[in-house]
């Protein structure tokens, strides 16, 4: 079935799907069979090039593909059936859209003559997924199928990456048509930018050279641009000697162990990063999008700074915050252009001013914003993450998370020195992301240590994917910070709603150790700080999937925090709050916000 010299050969639609995936270099796909994709599953059965991972829910398939994509830089591939298969995938697709993750999702559809007839397991897949994909296709001509599939991969990975759906009716899968190989010709309408405008880059470098209180603010775009972009970023940051902070999505593009690193910024960012953002005179934003978790109160966001913004997506520029020097381009190219322009200019920077700036930053650092009161009788969640970090040093580790307090503690206390090591749901904030994402990461990196830092509430949303991990011998570690509450909801209810904990306490939780055993995985529990280290070591050394029930302090809050409606220089710190402070933390106006 290989393509002949002119690259075209006749085969069935289902064979075309498999051939196109193989030609795109796909090795793994995550999926769940059903009536409308049976011809494709039949072809899968008869070949060995592509390995299929059977998930337990289609949402899990997309998250697994996201984890796979984020940890490898490749496009993640999903195969699901029509109707409920497609609608179950919608959360994952939206997650991938918000976080710019390249995913191609193939959905089965009822035969073309039944479309619009309310057929069994029919839904308007392209209609439903239009706003939650970068692009989508309904293939009604088998001769267009190969072209559409190759285009789907091109669109998913090019420019600002994202999810693409290809909806294939069942009769098209059976029909014979012409297969065409990957084309090198330029797409007729979608050609994302690469290099940035040189004049804008020169203007940016000029502003950077004149800066007295500069800061780099980087995001997931640097990671999406590939490992070379992270390498170039390090060179640029070292070359200038300027401080750097990053969004949740950008962690790892710059090493957290470096002295120029200020930690994450934003709502639960560090005191030093947020204050430096507020007081800077030149902000160099690379591959981040001024999200509301980052900016806090918009009219008080970094007042008076000259803002440089590098983004491959022009619609990210000037969306929330007015930017002085916009540069539309791929980080991988633009950072190198900035390095070249900086070298060519060989600027004499204001060393005295920078020394003063670093002194100021040191005074903020001395505030030790991540300090927390540890306890000897109960495990503090921050302590658990710190120990997990310490005990995994020197190991080839990948971290995924769910969404909530544990996610923020993971971002604050687990430090990343390399890109593609940190998989979290940033934009959509999808509880249940972590286990399936860990499955995807482990599939791509079978010998690595893959840990989902989880909360007991999030993890129950996609717990069934443990079954997938067991089936494929994927030794993922689900490290649950179990406080029996939806912790972030509880924290907001404490801050905003007078401590009325409306439905944020899970009164009936499973015994996670027994649950693990029921799935034929391994369950481990730690309840006291003294037993934590040994239990973590045991988890790491267990060559099977592990659910680790880490019983933590029930009412710990995640600090520091920019209360909603406040500016970066008005943070709540954890170690010196009184009950009254908490009561008055958020203004009446702030309470209407999310």
């Amino acid at each position, binding site marked *: 079935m290989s393509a002949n010299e002119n690259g075209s050969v006749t085969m069935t639609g289902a064979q075309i799907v498999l051939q196109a995936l193989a030609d795109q270099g796909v090795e793994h796909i995550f999926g769940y069979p059903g009536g409308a994709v049976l011809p494709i599953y039949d072809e899968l059965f008869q070949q060995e090039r592509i390995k299929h991972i059977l998930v337990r829910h289609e949402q899990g398939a997309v998250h697994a593909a996201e984890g796979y994509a984020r940890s490898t830089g490749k496009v993640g591939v999903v195969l699901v059936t029509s109707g409920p298969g497609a609608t179950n995938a919608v959360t994952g697709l939206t997650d991938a859209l918000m976080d710019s993750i390249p995913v191609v999702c193939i959905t089965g559809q009822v035969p073309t003559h039944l479309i619009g007839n309310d057929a069994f397991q029919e839904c308007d897949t392209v209609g439903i997924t239009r706003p939650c994909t*970068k692009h989508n296709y309904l293939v009604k001509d088998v001769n267009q199928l190969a072209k559409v599939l190759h285009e789907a991969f091109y669109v998913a990975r090019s420019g600002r990456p994202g999810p693409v759906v290809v909806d294939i009716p069942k009769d098209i899968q059976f029909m014979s048509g012409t297969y065409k190989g990957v084309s090198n010709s330029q797409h007729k309408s979608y050609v994302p930018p690469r290099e940035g405008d040189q004049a804008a880059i020169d203007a940016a470098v000029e502003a950077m050279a004149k800066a007295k209180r500069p800061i780099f603010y980087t995001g997931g775009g640097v990671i999406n641009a590939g490992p070379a972009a992270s390498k170039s970023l390090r060179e640029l940051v070292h070359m200038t000697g300027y401080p750097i902070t990053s969004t949740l999505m950008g962690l790892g593009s710059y090493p957290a162990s470096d002295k120029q690193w200020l930690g994450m910024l934003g709502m639960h960012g560090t005191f030093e990063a947020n204050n430096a953002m507020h007081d800077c005179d030149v902000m160099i934003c690379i591959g981040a999008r001024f999200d509301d978790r980052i900016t*806090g109160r918009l009219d008080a966001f970094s007042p008076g700074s000259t803002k440089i913004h590098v983004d491959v997506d022009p619609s990210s520029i000037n969306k929330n915050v*007015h930017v002085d020097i916009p540069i539309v381009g791929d980080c991988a190219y633009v950072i190198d252009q900035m390095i070249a322009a900086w070298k060519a200019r060989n600027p004499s920077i204001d060393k005295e001013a920078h020394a003063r700036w670093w002194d100021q930053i040191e005074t903020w650092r001395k505030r030790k914003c991540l300090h927390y009161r540890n306890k000897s009788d109960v495990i503090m969640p921050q302590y658990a993450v710190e120990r997990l970090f310490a005990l995994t040093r020197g190991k080839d580790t990948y971290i995924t998370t769910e969404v909530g307090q544990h996610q923020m503690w993971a971002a604050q206390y687990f430090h990343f020195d390399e890109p593609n090591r940190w998989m979290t749901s940033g934009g959509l904030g999808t509880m249940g992301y972590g286990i399936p994402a860990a499955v995807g990461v482990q599939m791509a990196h079978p010998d690595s240590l893959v840990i989902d830092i989880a909360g007991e509430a999030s993890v129950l949303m996609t717990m069934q994917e443990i079954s997938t991990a067991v089936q494929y011998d994927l030794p993922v570690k689900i490290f649950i910070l179990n406080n029996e509450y939806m912790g972030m909801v509880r924290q907001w209810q404490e801050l905003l709603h007078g401590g009325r904990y409306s439905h944020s306490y899970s009164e009936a939780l499973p015994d996670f150790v027994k649950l693990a055993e029921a799935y034929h995985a391994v369950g481990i529990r730690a309840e006291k700080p003294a037993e934590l280290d040994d239990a973590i070591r045991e988890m790491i050394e267990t060559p099977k999937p592990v659910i680790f029930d880490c019983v933590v302090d029930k009412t710990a809050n995640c600090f520091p925090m920019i209360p909603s*409606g406040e500016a970066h220089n008005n943070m709540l710190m954890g170690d010196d709050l009184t009950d009254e402070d908490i009561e008055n933390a958020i203004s009446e106006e*702030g309470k209407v916000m999310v």
Partner: protein
Amino acid sequence: MGQPGSAYSLEKPEQKLETHTMSVLVDNEPGVLARVIGLFSGRGYNIESLTVSETEHEAHLSRITIVTTGTPMVIEQIKHQLDRLVPVHSVTDLTVCGETIERELALVKVAGVGEKRVEALRLAEAFRANAIDASLEHFVFEITGRQSKIEQFVALMQPLGLVEVCRTGVAAIGRGPERM
């Protein structure tokens, strides 16, 4: 304390609204109009008028003309958001690209007898509207022009027995020999 300024703030700072006419060249494929309209509804942008038709048959290209209002920041967003749709070839903000000709066609049905009927016909002549259907009790006028002219004509017909109006929405093109 002043107004909270987070993205979730209920009140946005007062900014002047502008009306812009955009010309969007798209592949004429199923769903492309839904993508454009979905973008406007999903992101809360306004559509004042929208027209679409295939204009280049061999290349299967359609031209969508959209009249929209928003703050300068929103107008810029609309342009970029449209531009990143995969089947969109180009987005031109005609309002900022030199001089533009805008025209709209309307069909206006007026019923009446006697003096009112004569007056309606007299005004139609003054507006260069054609009577394309008539009986002893009614006219259907066809009128072409800028939106303001059509608004004015319809307003004048109101007391003279206006029955109903159908409008095409704005078609627009730049002046001069250049392509957009």
